[in-house]
């Protein structure tokens, strides 16, 4: 039985790749991950800045922004999947009880070891620069000038 099915499936390279699509989605679902041109949406500049502040990581270049746009377009393919009535899955072990250990102190007192790896230490404190100072607002030119 397999031999016949095998000849059918494995001889038709395009056969198995399309997969399931309940609603018409975006372009083809090939492995390469490239979106069709009409799917690429621009991410507005204020969102870019907002992301940089949230992530505390900068884009550094226009290529990086373009990569984000491609990544978003790629993610947009999920819209084609019908998920009505489907619960989000957070963990594959959702049917099990999370293990909780008894609330007893069994280890600790390792301040020395933990302080070893920090660059700036003062006695038993990690030293940080002053907080509550927001990053300066940058115009678009400055946004990509640092790298």
């Amino acid at each position, binding site marked *: 039985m*397999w*031999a016949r*099915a*095998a000849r059918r*499936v*494995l001889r038709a*390279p*395009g*056969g*198995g*790749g399309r*997969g*399931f*699509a309940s609603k018409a989605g975006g372009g083809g679902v*090939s*492995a*390469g*991950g490239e979106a069709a041109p009409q799917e690429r949406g621009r991410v507005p500049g204020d969102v870019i800045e*907002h*992301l*940089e502040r*949230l*992530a*505390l*990581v*900068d884009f*550094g270049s226009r290529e*990086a922004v373009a*990569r*984000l746009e491609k*990544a978003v377009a*790629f*993610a947009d*393919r*999920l*819209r084609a*999947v019908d*998920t009505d009535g489907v619960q*989000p*899955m*957070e963990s*594959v*072990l959702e049917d*099990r009880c999370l*293990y909780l*250990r008894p609330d007893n102190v069994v280890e600790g007192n390792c301040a020395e*070891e933990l302080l*070893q*790896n*920090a*660059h700036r230490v003062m006695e038993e404190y*990690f030293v*940080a*620069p*002053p*907080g509550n*100072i*927001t*990053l300066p607002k940058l115009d678009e030119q400055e946004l990509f000038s*640092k790298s």
Partner: protein
Amino acid sequence: MLGRTLREVSVALKQGQITPTELCQECLSLIKKTKFLNAYITVSEEVALKQAEESEERYKKGYVPPYNATVVQKLLDQGALLMGKTNLDEFAMGSGSTDGVFGPVKNPWSYSKQYREKKKQKPHGENEDTNWLITGGSSGGSAAAVSAFTCFAALGSDTGGSTRNPAALCGVVGLKPTYGLVSRHGLIPLVNSMDVPGILTRCVDDAATVLGVLAGHDCKDSTTVQDPVKSFILPSLTDVSKLCIGIPKEYLVPELSSEVQSLWSKAAKLFESEGAKVIEVSLPHTSYSIVCYHVLCTSEVASNMARFDGLEYGHRCDINVSTEAMYAATRREGFNDVVRGRILSGNFFLLKENYENYFIKAQKVRRLIANDFVNVFNSGVDVLLTPTTLSEAVPYVEFIKEDNRTRSAQGDIFTQAVNMAGLPAVSVPMALSNQGLPIGLQFIGRAFCDQQLLTVAKWFEKQVQFPIIQLQEIMGDCSSVFENDLASVSLKQ
């Protein structure tokens, strides 16, 4: 500097205000000047300077972990010897092992007799080493280390296929255990709900041995299951007639190389010819799997990478204007483009206006994907058989023509669905390609049926008799490694 206390000077050394060698030389110089005191009977100048050099090396290394990961500790407790730490893509993000701060990893098969004969290349040394092949990733260093006989087993990580992918490209066995079977304590988290430590060895029996040591509940990792785990010896299957092998039709994608496709077909026929039931099955949401993985992975990464702010450990830059400025600059310096790209994508998907449409949506699709597998296994299938990679290893110069995200989407295509479902899977080398390079196939098992999975894999391994890599040219006088006896030992059961 010489007048300071031990603590103060230690801080100065760590901050780089003075190097161990400079400090040593200051002491030595003062010893010479105060010779008239007759305090020293011997001055061990050379030894001191050499130790200073060694100390400098240690300072250069940066982060030194204050504890061992559970999986490492378990191996050490069983008497394993730690040969070293292996190279990888930065933060395990990538499928080539090309994006690490220590440079890319080269696939040992690039230097094998089998590959070079096909390429009609001159022996190593006469040729420029420009066309070497990637190992795959992200645990490429581990795969290369095992493939080149430098160790008997290596640990990797597997979040989307990072252990199985390089295993297939380097001709070794790469095992991804069931999620929850092996402790993640000490494994830098990428995607908490998908990460597992991976095991790389040269044969399936060895992988089972290592798994036996590592599996089991760890109170330091609450996502490990509490079911009792016994270490096992894999039976040698002689009769596969009771087995049902499933071939998921959606895994036949246009990008699959014809050689891998043909080996996949050959493997299916092999099982059938030995009496197993081999059937075509369907995992309908396969084509959305890589997209779903991309969203969930970047989102979790955005959260997990937040801990790297330079304050408690790791790289820290010199900016002191404000905490935010320091964090931003530290992270810009400390993370490569790939990591930063993923953090930013992840933060995008987690924005309030996007959360429902991207992150929650992906979580729902994840359930559909996991259910696809459940349905297939419930229909009587014991093990699924799929390719591990789209093709054999490619040259580095080819690989880097596309960006990391594209390559990861291609590299992980057959492997990441398994991580989303939390199932065990193993890549087993099957045969050499026309170019003399390894091609591996993947077996996927039911959750917590790792032993059964490995039993089937072991039978397959014995049937296909994958050739040993011939590295004599670069091994020089380590030829004893390649005596035929070694090959037959592991197969005599």
